[in-house]
Every structure is written in C-alpha cells, then in structure tokens.
C-alpha cells in the first residue's frame, strides 16, 4: 500500500507540475493577489491616525482627555498626538496633516465642575473618514463618561445636602478621565500591535488558494475513472486505499509547498513576518489537512468533473468570504466575525494573525490548529468513506 501510495503521489505531482495553470494557482496567484489587496488596503491593517489637540483649558478635566484617553494603552500606539494651539490645529486639519483636531475650549474644566455641558469640538480633514469617525467617538464617549460621572457625583452631593467643594469637583474630572476609551475594537483584534498587509494577506491568500490547489487530489479520482486509468490501477493489484492515500499525499505535498512558498516569498519581497516558524508550519499542516478533507468531501458528492469543479468553487468562495480571506477580519461586522469561526479558513487566518499580533508560539495557535485538524479529520474521514465506494463502483 505504501509503495502504491508513493507511486501514485509521484505520478500525480508530476502531472500537476506539468500543468501551468496548477502552478499559477498554487504559487503565483496567491502572491500576486496578496500584493494587490495589500496595496489596496494601504499596507497596514490596523487603525492609525494623527490628531491635533488644542487644549485652551489646561485644567484637570481637559487633561483627563488629552493625557488620559488619547494616551491610554489601547490608543497610544495607534494615535499620533500633536499638541498645538487652536489656530495651528485648524491649519493642520485643513492641510490634511492631521486627520482630526480636538479643540478643548478655555473654561472646559470649570464648566464641568459647575455641572455644565462639556463641549469638545472635533474638526475632521475628511481624508481619513475612519480616523474622523474614531475622533468623534472618542469625544462623544468622553462627554458621555463625564455626564455619567457628573450625575453620580451630583446624586451623592444632593444626598449629603452639601455644595461641591473644589476637591470634589476635581475628582469628577479625574474619574471621567479614568473611564474606558472606546478603542476596544482595535485593541481587541491586534493585541495592541499593528498587522502589516503582507502579514495578513500573505496567509489569507495562501489559505484561499490552498483550497483550489488541493482540490485536484480528489478531482483526479474522477478524471482517472473517466479515462479508465483507475480501472487499470486496480487491475494491477493496487489497493483502493493505496490509490487514495497517494492522491491525498500529492495534494498534501503541493498544498503545503504552496503555503510555505508564499511564506518565503512575502518574507523576502515584502519583509513580512509570519511569526514563530514552528507554529507557522504546524498551522500550515493542519490547514492543508482541513482543505484536503473539505474539498475531497465536496468532490465525492459530484458525479462528473464539471459538477466537482462547480461544487468546489462554490464552497471555496463561500468559505473565503465568511472566513475573512478578502478583508480584514477586524473590519467585518461582529456577526460576520462570529460566522468566520464556522469556517476552517477563518480559524486558520485567526491563528496566523494571532501569531503576528501576539508574537507567541505553538500555544498561540493551539485552538486554530485543533479546530482545523478536527475539520480535516472529520471531513477527510467522510470523504475517504465515499471515495472508496466511488473507486470500487
């Protein structure tokens, strides 16, 4: 059986390496598409912004925003703050040198301390709408935090029947500043680190094209059945198990090579860093197995080559769209982010992103490896059962 598997695998690989379209799908297309999509996304997946801050107040409540919120751990790596006066802030925004400006007026602290409205003016350049939206959210959230704190303090003061002292009023600002800034979305996805496009779309495209690359393994059973070579193989004392193992081995070899070449290419050309090599290889292997299992199962449901191609394409594109292969997972709506966890490529991509973002090793990718491996074994087992029946028919 081992000899049969090796001979069939060698023959299949020879055939695939002769097929120019197969080489393009396995090695060229993932790299080119990753480069194009990476450029389209500006080369950086994480949120980045430059804000001008004009603090005409210089009081503790204003400082709660400028020194507290904008310098919070979740934002300080992502936001560049330029402290200027009001006129310079407007100029920076107009020239597009700042994505937005926060104008904190004189008397801001005093107004808050006296229970008045906290007004932060936000100017947007319009060139980076997301940065402008984030700036508005930051200001609104801080204002809301102040309002909530004011209410709590006022309620406490009303209960004691005493007017607020200066000290109590200052504490109000400090508590507001200590409030959580609305930056969890960015922080949660990247662990506070930025993801370079090559680090995201390299693995992403490798996984996407991996499904096409390995699908030939199962589809070649249909081709061999059609051209009569399967019958001849079985007449030569080759066991069905040996033939199927050979096809799986060829698909595994080519699929793994495809991802590893992508890793090497993005590293050499774009300076990408996929993270810990052992973890990358482990996740690659489990991802390849899941891709083989799924595509093989899909192909065994088909009766003809054409059906198999149609079914495979449908499944692969659906998985890619749900799994976040074309857009940053972090930019997907929450529902879609959850749906991505129903796909092996969503898990694999999460693993690769976590490797880059968290800089960990095998423990970082334990869950993605476990999930993709399980998917591969379950679907591969079902595919093997169906494929044996197909071969023996």
């Amino acid at each position: 059986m081992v000899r049969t598997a090796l001979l069939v695998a060698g023959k299949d690989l020879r055939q695939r390496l002769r097929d120019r379209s197969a080489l393009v799908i396995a090695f060229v297309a993932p790299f080119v598409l990753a480069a194009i999509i990476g450029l389209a996304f500006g080369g950086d997946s994480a949120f980045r912004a430059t804000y001008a801050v004009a603090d005409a107040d210089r009081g503790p409540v204003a400082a709660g925003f400028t020194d507290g919120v904008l310098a919070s751990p979740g934002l300080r790596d992502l936001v560049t703050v330029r402290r200027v006066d009001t006129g310079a802030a407007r100029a920076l925004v107009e020239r597009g040198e700042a994505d937005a400006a926060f104008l904190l007026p004189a008397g801001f602290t005093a107004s808050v301390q006296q229970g008045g409205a906290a007004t932060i003016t936000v100017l947007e350049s319009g060139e980076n709408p997301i940065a402008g939206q984030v700036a508005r959210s930051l200001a609104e959230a801080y204002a809301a935090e102040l309002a909530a704190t004011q209410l709590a303090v006022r309620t406490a003061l009303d209960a004691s029947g005493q007017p607020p002292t200066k000290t109590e009023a200052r504490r109000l600002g400090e508590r507001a500043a200590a409030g959580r800034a609305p930056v969890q979305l960015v922080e949660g996805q990247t662990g506070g680190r930025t993801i370079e496009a090559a680090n995201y779309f390299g693995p992403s495209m490798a996984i996407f094209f991996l499904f096409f690359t390995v699908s030939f393994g199962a589809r070649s059973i249909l081709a061999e059945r059609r051209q009569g070579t399967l019958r001849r193989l079985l007449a030569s004392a080759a066991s069905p198990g040996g033939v199927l193992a050979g096809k799986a081995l060829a698909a595994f070899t080519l699929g793994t090579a495809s991802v590893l070449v992508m890793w090497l290419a993005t590293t050499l050309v774009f300076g990408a860093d996929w993270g810990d090599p052992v973890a990358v290889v482990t996740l690659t292997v489990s991802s390849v197995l899941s891709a083989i299992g799924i595509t093989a199962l899909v192909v065994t449901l088909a009766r003809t080559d054409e059906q198999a191609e149609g079914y495979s394409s449908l499944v692969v594109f659906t998985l890619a769209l749900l799994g976040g292969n074309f857009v940053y997972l972090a930019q997907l709506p929450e529902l879609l982010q959850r749906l991505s966890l129903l796909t092996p490529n969503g898990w694999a991509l999460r693993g690769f992103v976590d490797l880059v973002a968290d800089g960990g090793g095998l423990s970082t990718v334990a869950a993605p490896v476990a999930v993709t491996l399980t998917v591969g074994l379950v679907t591969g087992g079902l595919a093997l059962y169906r494929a044996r029946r197909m071969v023996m028919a």
Partner: protein
Amino acid sequence: MNGSPVLWCKDLRKRFKERLAVDGVGFEVAPGETYGLLGPNGAGKTTTISMICGLLRRDGGEVTVAGASLGHDPGQVKAAIGYVPQDVALYPDLSGLENLRFWGRMYGLAGRDLAERVEATLEVVGLTERAGDKVGDYSGGMQRRLNIAAGMLHRPRLLVLDEPTAGVDPQSRNAILSNVEALGGQGIAVLYTTHYMEEAERLCDRVGIIDQGRLIAEGTRRELVARVGERDRIELAATGDLAALAAAAARLEGVDEASVVAGGVRLVARDGRRLLPRLLEAAEHAGAEVTSVELAEPDLEAVFLHLTGKALRD
C-alpha cells in the same frame, strides 16, 4: 491443450439488479494459447473479464490464474495478469516513456529491469521514436498500441485484451493484431474479447461464443463449424448448358443442393475444397465452361447466426 491452463474459470455468474449479465461461464486458456471470447456488444464479455481480473465482485464461480485462486490470493492473480482495457487507459499529459515506467513500477518493476523492458516493449509496438512525446499528441492507433504495451510490459502469464481494436484505423488494427499474434510464440496465454469475427478467426486458437451472458459454444474454428453442421457455398460462373451442369453437380457425392442462377450454378456442399476437381470435371462432361469459382466456407459469423438466430453485430 498444452500443459496445465494459465487461466481456469468455472461457473462465473454476475447479476446487475434484474439483469443476469453472466450466467455460468467457464473456460480454460493454456500457455501460448489465444482464446477468443466472441459475442455481440452487451453479451457479457467485459463483465466476464472484469471478474477474471478481480475488478468486479463475482456472484458465483471460481477463477484460477497461474495456479493462484482469485478468491484466496487476488494479489498474486492480478500480478500474473496483464490487463488491456477497451478504452485507452493512459495519462495523456505524460509521455509514452513515463506512462510505461509508471505502469511497470505498479507491477513491481524497477531499475535496470524496468528500463530494459520499457525499451524492448516500445520496440515491439513500434513507438521508440515517439517515446518522449506526450501520449495526448499520439494518433489513436499509437495510443492503442501503447495501451497494449502497458499491459504486456511486466511479461504477464495471461494477457487480457478487451476489444483492443475498437475504433482503430485498418493500419493500426493490423499492427495490433500482429503484436497479439506474436504473443502466443512467447508462451503468453491471451484472452481476447471481440465482436469482430475476422479478428477471432485470425488470432484465436480457440473461440468461446458468448451471448446473453452464456457461453453457448466453444472450440477451434473448425470444431465449431463442424459442430453446427454448416456447409460450404460454391458459386460457379459458367457458360453453356447450365442446367446440365447443375444436374451433373447434384449427382456428385457431397453435394446437397445445386441450382441454376444468373450466369452460373450455385451449390451447397460438404467439404467444398475436395469437391472442386470433380466438379470441374463434371462441368466439362456436361458441356459447360466454368469461368470462375468462388468457394465460401462457413465462418464464425455463420456459426453465431446458426446458434443464436442473429448476426454478431446486431
């Protein structure tokens, strides 16, 4: 039959749902013998050889090849068989050489032995010059020849050819038949299925006639013809007194029927070849001049027609 048979099968049966495809077929093939399984399309030929090659599960019956039982040692049986499928079963994107190397390795060949056999087999089928070309670029006839080469590469004890000339041009067909004729001299037992009567007559030492899943007759061509009592037809083109010629011919021993037809006399007789000298002598005495003689001996087509009431290619 020479020595113990290479192939021995008995009472083979196979049913596909309601249809009994093979019903109690059994025969033997000796070393160096070419056995033809002759029958129309759908008669059960391919089903029979599929069971012999272990490609199809039998509902009943036994198969022994080179002393090994298919039921007990399928691996040994398969290793002793060279199977040439009805359609070209090769990889079109690999060269002829690569195809042969692959199929040789599948039968356990390796190294120098493999290289030598590939070279020799390419020589036999006349494809040495084109060995490096992709099989997809071969003509249909060349593909057929390579198809046979892949089956005989490992020097099997039994070569099973399933209608190897179907859809082949006359030139390639002749080349294929010559290749098969040569196999008998090498001691290889050949099981050859066809629905071409002339191929069976040319190649086969013995023929089994199969129809509707049953082996209805078996033997050498002469035995089969004798068994069904078929007679020769003799057409004499003649001038002169044709009626007298017919009457004189009818009196000869061995002549069963004699009738005048346009431009001559038609006879139905036993062993026409021996009768011819006496027939020509009788014509001279009857005052007729024979200008040509056409002797049609009974063939397997006639045998099949006699046994089944239908033509082979119906």
